C-alpha cells in the first residue's frame, strides 16, 4: 500500500491579478522505502504541492483533491490533528536548514523537545535518542554537538542536523525540498548518501524536490516532471531520464552540459521562459516553447496518458520508439 497517494491536487492562491492556480490537478503516490523525485523549473508548483499536504500554504490559499496518508486525507484533517501528523509521521526539510532549526535553541533541545512531545519519552531517554539521531546522520562528537547552537555548524552539518530533527519521531515520510541546493557538491554527495542509507536501512519514504536532474538521477526511484503546475511526465527513473517521451523532459536534459561534448558545443537552452502562474498558456502550457507543437497543442490540455508503465502528456509523442 502506498505511504502517500495524492489525487487531483489543486492549489490556488489569491494574487493582485485574482485567484491563480499554482498546482493544477496533480496525482502521484509514494511507496514504502522509495525515493520519489519531483523536478521542474522554479515556479512549476513543486514546492506548493508539498506545502499543501502539511497545511503550510500562505493565507488565503484554496486546496482541492485528496492526499491519503495512513488511511486519512491530509487535506481534510482538522488543524490540530494535522499538526500531530506533520510533526511525527510526515517531516519536512528545506533548502536552508536555518528555516527549520531554531537559532536560539541548542541542538539538543531541538532534538529532545520533539521526541518528548510526540513520543512521550522521559528526559533521559530523549537525550539518549538525540545522541542516536546525531550518530545516524554522522555528526562527529554527538555529545558535545547537543550543547551547540545551529550557527556553530557548517551548512552541510546544519542540513544533517535538520534531517536529524526531522527524523526524531521516526516519520514514515520525509519531504525534502531542495535539501542540497545550497551545498557544495562534496557535501551534497554526503546528504544524498545519507538519504539513500535512511531509506535502505530504515525503510523511510522520501519525496525529493529538486531542480537538479543530476540529484534526481542519483537517488530517485521514480520521478515526476512538473511544468506550470501540472505533471508532464512521470515514471521509473531510468525510463524518464534515459528515454524521455515529453518534449519538456527532453529539453531539460538537453540544456545540461554533456561530459563528452566536443569543445565549444553550444548548450541547448529552452527558448522562452516558464510562464508565470497567472499567465499559463491555453492548451499544453509548454506549447509556446516546444519545437514539436502542433495546432491542437495550443487549444487542448493534453491528458497524462499511461504508456508502458510511464505517463506523459504529449499527444505528438515525437520520441516514440
Amino acid at each position, binding site marked *: 500500500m502506498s505511504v502517500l497517494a495524492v489525487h487531483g491536487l489543486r492549489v490556488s492562491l489569491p494574487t493582485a491579478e485574482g485567484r491563480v492556480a499554482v498546482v493544477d490537478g496533480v496525482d502521484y503516490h509514494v511507496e514504502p522505502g522509495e525515493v520519489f523525485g519531483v523536478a521542474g523549473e522554479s515556479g512549476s508548483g513543486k514546492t506548493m504541492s508539498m506545502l499543501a499536504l502539511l497545511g503550510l500554504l500562505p493565507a488565503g490559499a484554496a486546496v482541492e483533491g485528496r492526499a491519503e496518508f495512513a488511511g486519512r486525507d491530509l487535506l481534510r484533517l482538522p488543524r490540530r490533528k494535522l499538526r500531530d501528523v506533520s510533526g511525527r509521521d510526515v517531516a519536512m526539510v528545506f533548502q536552508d536548514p536555518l528555516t527549520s532549526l531554531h537559532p536560539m535553541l541548542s541542538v539538543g533541545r531541538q532534538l529532545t523537545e520533539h521526541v518528548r512531545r510526540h513520543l512521550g519519552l522521559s528526559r533521559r531517554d530523549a537525550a539518549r535518542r538525540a545522541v542516536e539521531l546525531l550518530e545516524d546522520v554522522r555528526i562527529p562528537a554527538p555529545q558535545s554537538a547537543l550543547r551547540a547552537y545551529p550557527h556553530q555548524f557548517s551548512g552541510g552539518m546544519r542540513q544533517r542536523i535538520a534531517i536529524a530533527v526531522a527524523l526524531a519521531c521516526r516519520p514514515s515520510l520525509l519531504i525534502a525540498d531542495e535539501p542540497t541546493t545550497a551545498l557544495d557538491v562534496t557535501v551534497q554527495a*554526503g546528504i544524498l548518501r545519507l538519504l539513500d542509507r535512511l531509506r535502505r536501512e530504515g525503510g523511510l519514504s522520501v519525496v525529493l524536490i529538486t531542480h537538479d536532474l543530476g540529484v534526481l538521477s542519483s537517488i530517485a526511484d521514480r520521478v515526476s516532471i512538473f511544468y506550470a503546475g501540472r505533471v508532464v511526465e512521470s515514471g521509473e527513473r531510468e525510463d524518464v531520464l534515459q528515454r524521455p517521451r515529453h518534449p519538456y523532459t527532453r529539453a531539460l536534459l538537453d540544456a545540461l*552540459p554533456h561530459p563528452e561534448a566536443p569543445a565549444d558545443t553550444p548548450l541547448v537552452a529552452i527558448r522562452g521562459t516558464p510562464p508565470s502562474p497567472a499567465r499559463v498558456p491555453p492548451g499544453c502550457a509548454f506549447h509556446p516553447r516546444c519545437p514539436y507543437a502542433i495546432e491542437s497543442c495550443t487549444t487542448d490540455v493534453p491528458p497524462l496518458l499511461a504508456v508502458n508503465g510511464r505517463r506523459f502528456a504529449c499527444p505528438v509523442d515525437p520520441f516514440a520508439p
Partner: protein
Amino acid sequence: MSALELRDVEVEYDRRGGGKVRAVAGASLSVERGQIVGLVGESGCGKSSLARAAVGLVAPTAGTVRFEGREVTPLTRRARPRELVRLQMVFQNPYSSLNPRRKVGSQLADGGPRTRVGELLELVGLPASAAARYPHQFSGGQRQRIAIARVLAADPTVIVLDEPLASLDASAQAQIANLLVSLARGLDLSLLLISHDLAIVRHVADVVSVMYLGRMVETGATRPLWQLPLHPYTEALIAAVPHADGSGFLPEALPGEVPDPANPPPGCRFNPRCPYAFDRCVAEEPPLLPLPGDRRSACWLRDTKPG
C-alpha cells in the same frame, strides 16, 4: 603579457573578536586574451576573495594583481582610474547590481554618451524593446544577461564573473554559458569564471584552477584535468558531481570539512581529508609543482624528485 595576472596574492580579513583570517594564502593565476579560466573549489576556499582582489574590490595584503601589465590598485573614494574601467566584474545576484527604479536602457547608457544600447542588448540576446522595461520585469536569467550587458557597456577586455550561474534554472544557465563562450570567442574577451558548478566550468572553460583553503592545488587545460586529475582534491570534486543519466549512480562524498582558514593544518592543507596522505604530507607543504603538459599540482605524490 597576460590580460590578467595574479601573483602570490594574499587576502586577509579581520575576524570579529580579534585576530585575522587569511582567506587567500598565496595564490597565482593568469588569464590570457580571449581565454576562459574556470576557478573552482568548495565554499570558503577563498575563490570569491581572490575574485574581489582581482578587480580591486579588496586590497591584497601581499602579492600583485596586474591588468594588462598595469598594477590594479584597490578602490578608494576617488573615481576608478580610467585604465581600469576595462576590467569589470559580474556578481551572482544581478538584482544587486541593477537599479530597480531605472529602466534597463538608461542603466546601460551609463556606459557613456555614445553607448549603443540596442547593440548591447543584441549582444546578450535580448530584444531592443527590453530597454524600455524595468529589471523586475525580467526572469532571473534575463536579468543576469542585462547585468552582463551593463558590464559590456564599459567596453571591457577582462570580466571577472563570481558565480554568475548560481540560482538559475538549467535552461537559463545554458543560455548564460553560451553567451560567455560567444563573448570570449567573438569579442576576444578574457573571462575569469568563478563557479561551484563543475559541469558548467568543464563545458566552457579552457583552463581550470582548483583552489583549496586559500591556495591553488591544481591548474591545467580543462579536458586533460578532468580526464586525469593530478591532485586528490580535484579527483574528489569531480567524483562528487552527480550524473543526470538516469543510471542511479551515487556520487562520492568527500569526508570531513574545509578547515578553519585561520588555523590551517600543518603540511599539505588537504592532508586531513586526503585518502592518499603519507608522512611527508603532514610535515611539509607541497608547492605547485610544474608537470608535463603545462599542468601543475600541489601534491607530493607528483613529486618526481626524492623528498
